[in-house]
């Protein structure tokens, strides 16, 4: 047997082993959520039973409990509403801003762009305390409107970055031609640039929505009452009755909330990554 083939085979085996290890490590918790969500409690809380399989028939009880006896559906609704509103605000503010910055030649455009990127580095865990006071003063404490107000500050900077890169790749000549044909600069923007950038805008929509669903600190800080909470905070905080964890329903809740977001995010991953890397490594 020759060296090259052996080496290649060995490399393939190692690669597969590593891949297997990481896939298991990374995806296992979700499989675990799935199992717990459908396992009967007698099975679930029995240390003797093999935890990896269904020893008794799977059940829908946990899911039923989740949807009928908790505020889960309400949280999903809250999250969806806040998400939609924040997306709207973000689009309204970041699309024109990104366009103006993309077309602005010279040092100022760069400086403002970098400034915006730097604000992305100011974390919610720094701002949540003063903001909690501001929210209280504004009378928005305990309402979803506090989040509708604050979340765009998290989503706008990155959206501007994403869109800036996108707009920069549209040749100026296109707009020049439109203006020669009679459109004003703003008209060219609305009628020409925006329609072309639809996929970039869609990316921002998805990104903004996933950010809203992922957020934890602000929602935890600003909102106390159960019925007004978001799904990311409601599940860990309120699905625990006293010190008792209803693990079955808890896992079901996590799974149901995670998967659609995972799918969406995955579809647009390449764009997000480009946004991250363009941010620090100009392409």
């Amino acid at each position, binding site marked *: 047997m*020759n060296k090259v083939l052996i080496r290649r085979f060995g490399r393939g085996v190692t690669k597969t082993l590593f891949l297997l290890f990481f896939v298991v490590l990374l995806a296992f918790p979700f499989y675990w959520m799935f199992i717990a969500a459908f396992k009967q409690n007698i099975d679930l809380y029995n240390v003797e039973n093999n935890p990896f399989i269904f020893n008794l028939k799977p059940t829908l009880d946990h899911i039923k409990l989740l949807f009928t006896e908790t505020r889960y559906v309400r949280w999903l609704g809250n999250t969806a509403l806040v998400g939609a509103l924040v997306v709207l605000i973000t689009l309204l503010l970041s699309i024109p801003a990104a366009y103006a910055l993309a077309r602005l030649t010279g040092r100022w455009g760069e400086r403002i762009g970098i400034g915006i990127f730097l604000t992305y580095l100011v974390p919610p865990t720094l701002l949540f305390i003063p903001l909690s006071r501001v929210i209280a003063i504004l009378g928005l404490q305990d309402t979803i409107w506090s989040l509708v107000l604050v979340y765009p500050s998290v989503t706008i900077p990155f959206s501007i970055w994403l869109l800036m890169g996108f707009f920069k790749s549209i040749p100026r000549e296109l707009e020049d031609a439109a203006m020669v044909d009679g459109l004003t600069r703003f008209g060219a923007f609305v009628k020409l640039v925006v329609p072309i950038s639809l996929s970039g805008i869609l990316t921002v929509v998805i990104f903004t929505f996933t950010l809203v669903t992922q957020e934890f600190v602000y929602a935890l800080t600003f909102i106390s009452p159960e019925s007004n909470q978001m799904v990311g905070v409601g599940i860990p905080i309120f699905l625990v009755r006293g010190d008792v964890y209803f693990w079955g329903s808890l896992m079901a809740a996590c799974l149901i909330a995670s998967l659609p977001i995972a799918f969406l995010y995955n579809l647009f991953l390449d764009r997000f990554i480009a946004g991250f890397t363009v941010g620090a490594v100009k392409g």
Partner: protein
Amino acid sequence: MAVVQTRNLTKIFKEGELGAVNNVDLETREGEFLVFLGPSGSGKTTLLRMIAGLETPTSGEILIGGKVVNNMTPRERRIAMVFQSYALYPHLTVYNNIAFPLKAQNVPKNVHKEKVEWAASLLGIQGLLKRKPRELSGGERQRVALARAIVREPSVFLLDEPLSNLDAKLRLSAREELERFHRRVGTTTIYVTHDQVEAMAMGDRIMVLNKGVVRQFATPKEVYDDPADTFVATFLGSPPMNLVENDDLIVGFRPEHFRLAEDVKEAKVPFKFKVENVEYLGAEFILSGLIMGGRLDGKKVVARLLLGHTYEVGATYDFAVPERQLKFFDRTTEKKTQARALAWA
């Protein structure tokens, strides 16, 4: 220095489709500058990469210096390769780029300096050793790539279209430098290109490839004056050879052999030529037009003529081709066939 041979070398990328390289046999001579010439997709680069060890053959053997190297890694084959993009390591200085092969083969460090400076001086880049690749011009990068290749004194050089990325003006001087380099160093070299001018100028022998098959493997003169088939006939020479169909034959003659009958002093075949377009290129004319009358009536042909006469569009002239410059190809196989005497009435 070694001889490269391939026996029945084949590379198939997709099952059931025609291979990128089909049953290629070749043998280089020691120290020769061999050119693989062909259009894109002809398999020339795949062939080179198999010799380098970057692609595994589907079948067939590759031998370097008489040893079968199919199962050897590129490192073990003692070959050096210059890529189209030069593939210089962007984060290393010129010095470290050239020294890298020495480092990789565990040559003791105190020897590095001497060898790098020797390679650098061979290519006249001693002054660039501290620079990084991004600070260099195209021509300088080529020289660094060559220095990196020569520093480990390989038995064979493989060059993959190294001049393609240079702009036209630079290409000529870079080409001359390569030729000078080869004369100086004398290593067996295989050079891949799609440019027939480069091939003719540089090659000791040219292997013409199309669709993974060798069409002809001969000296520039043979390939030009005695093409093995219509592909070779039209691929070499600019403008390409005129080819006209006649019964079961294809008749060919090069534009430079097609001129005024009165200027042809040897045995010739006459044609009436109606000029449709005249291009004046400063040192010569390129005329395109139609043959009038006779068996080849209406066929489009091109003539390449030195100055001396004037030609008018629309006028018909008495042209002729020297008999010995007529080439004949079989119409079905497109391969060279016996010269025949024909009646050209």
